[in-house]
């Protein structure tokens, strides 16, 4: 991402999207380290999603960038300018919150125009801009309604319009979809991405929903205990996780006992290449994605280390997830629905593992299917 997308401005002119750089940011709450010397750079016009479990520091990062909290150490640069000590009101950032944050005593139009009013923009221009923003979020007909007359999804769209109306340099989204139901969440997620691309604004999005993160991000930053475990495009985070934490947190993984031998790991008779080639030989737990587990045969008599009994088949649409009891462990396999259609609980099947590079974990946790839900 080397080019600098242009953001639309009120006058129809364009301005260059900015780079955001955080260097060595730390934040402590008493003895708890919320953020530990974080370095993160958002390229101009890029959408980075910070993903992680509760308390990993993702919201703290966003709040430090917004100026709603002060960093203990470190610096923040926006467009090359140090804004570390600038108050929130002077940072020129639009923000959408997890909680509904529209001002209840103002109409939708007044809410969207609020930031412009503070900037002493004339009434006519303010109104025009507010309507433009409402059109952007497909809510021009709701301009004269009050927030309590809108649904949750509509309120968040108005909040997005309000944040964008001031033409901020950076857009910050703090779990804006978490209070919405699944269908609205998916629709609004796509709408946010469309608008972000259209406006071309540098955006930091915080969520604990991995599906959301992988769906809209240019790059996903997986955080844990105040630092970034991995920052990479969604496909890389999913298919080549940098650490076992990322492998287990993003998506589903089967934890299968294995043995490292000469740069490979032997799992139930299958030889799989290692992501970390320099791993010393020894006993490990291999993290195998359900998609890497394939059906060898479902007519086989049922012997060998990867033969087992189907426990359940979950229909997911184009694919189905099959839980298989191997006797000493349970394995998840994600199969095309056409293949899984013939399987029922109690069927005996034989599985195979595709030789994709896998991560291994030294810890000796229980083998089986480890599921990390969004």
């Amino acid at each position, binding site marked *: 991402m080397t080019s600098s997308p242009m953001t639309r401005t009120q006058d129809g002119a364009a301005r260059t999207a900015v780079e955001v750089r955080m260097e060595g940011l730390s934040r402590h709450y008493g003895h708890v380290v919320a953020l530990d010397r974080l370095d993160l750079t958002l390229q101009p016009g890029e959408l980075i999603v910070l993903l992680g479990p509760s308390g990993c520091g993702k919201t703290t990062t966003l709040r430090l960038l*917004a*100026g*709603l909290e002060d960093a203990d150490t470190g610096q923040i640069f926006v467009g090359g300018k140090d804004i570390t000590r600038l*108050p*929130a*009101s*002077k*940072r*020129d*950032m*639009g*923000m959408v*919150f997890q*909680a*509904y*944050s*529209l*001002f*209840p*005593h103002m109409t939708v139009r007044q809410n969207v125009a*609020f*930031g412009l009013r*503070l*900037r002493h923009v004339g009434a006519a221009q303010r109104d025009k801009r507010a309507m433009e923003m409402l059109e952007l979020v497909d809510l021009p007909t709701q301009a004269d309604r*009050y927030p309590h007359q809108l649904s949750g999804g509509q309120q968040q769209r108005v*909040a997005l319009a*309000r*944040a964008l109306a*001031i033409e901020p340099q950076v857009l*910050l989204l703090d779990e804006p979809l978490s209070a919405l139901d*699944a269908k609205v969440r998916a629709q609004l997620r796509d709408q946010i991405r469309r608008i972000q691309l259209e406006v071309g604004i540098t955006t930091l999005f915080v969520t604990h929903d*991995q*599906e959301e993160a*992988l769906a809209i991000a240019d790059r996903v930053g997986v955080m844990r205990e105040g630092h970034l475990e991995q920052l990479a495009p969604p496909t890389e985070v999913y298919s080549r996780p940098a650490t076992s934490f990322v492998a287990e947190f993003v*998506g*589903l993984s089967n934890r299968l006992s294995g043995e490292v031998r000469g740069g490979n790991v032997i799992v139930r008779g299958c030889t799989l290449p290692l992501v970390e080639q320099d791993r010393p030989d020894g006993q490990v737990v291999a993290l195998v994605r359900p998609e890497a587990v394939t059906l060898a045969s479902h007519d086989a008599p049922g012997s060998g280390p990867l033969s087992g009994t189907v426990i359940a088949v*979950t229909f*997911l649409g184009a694919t189905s*997830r099959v839980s298989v009891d191997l006797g000493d462990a349970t394995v998840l396999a994600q199969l095309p629905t056409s293949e899984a259609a013939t399987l029922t609980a109690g069927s005996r099947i034989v599985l195979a593992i595709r030789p994709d590079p896998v991560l291994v974990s030294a810890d000796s946790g229980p083998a089986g299917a480890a599921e990390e*839900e*969004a």
Partner: protein
Amino acid sequence: MAAVTSVGEAPLAPSAKRPPGMQAGRRRRLNIFRYVVFTIFGLFFLLPLLAVARFSLEAPTKLGTWSVTAWRQIASYQGTGIPPLLSSIEITLELAVITCAVMLILLVPTMIWVQLRVQWLARTIEFLCLLPLTIPAIVLVVGLGEIYVKIQRISLSALMLFWVYVILALPYAYRALAAGLTAIDVTTLSEAARSLGASWFTVIVRVIAPNMRAAILNAVVLTTSLVLGEFTIAYLLLYTNLQVELYSISRNTPNASVLFSTTLAALVFTFLLLLIVSYAGRRRRGRG
């Protein structure tokens, strides 16, 4: 990623529905209970007021007959060293306005600021605001006596009572405003406003305070009722407000019915004023 499964809503079992006859019977019993309670409490409040009204309309010369003399005597009373009734009403109304204004200016920004920035001070502020509830008026007067001696060197106006009335109104106003503050998400609203470029002053005045309108109105109603009904402190500090004036009239008029007409007049005056304040506030609010 998580599988999206839909869970159907189970239909209500027929046994879960109550027979309509049972519901109707229960509703009827509940309604009867409501009417009985309402009637008992209505009579409890209304009977003494009706008695006061009846006694205020008693003719001074002949018992058991009706007359409006006691009411006329309130308006026509001229006592030595006592201002006319209209002047006392005016002073009391001005006191109510000043007390409400000072109380709001003092309390609203302070409470919002404490909620937003110095939450560790919340308990202390609450304790200080509720303290006047525990101090008897006579103790307050003794304590404030010295201060009022100095105040009276500057002004002898009864309007100076607002200092002590603000203190007296603090507990009630604090409670009303605190309820309003907890009803809105102050932190999120203020952060949203700040991210849009609002200063702290703008956050308080244009974002938080307008959303506390109901709470502010309640605080105003409570403060107004306190000021309109206050007698002890004004009397002990030698000021004449409406209550002191009515007390003087009832004491100095040789007609026992005046005692009742003044009591009822004070009550009706306060009630009407509170009704106006409350109605005006709610009408303005109705739009949103």
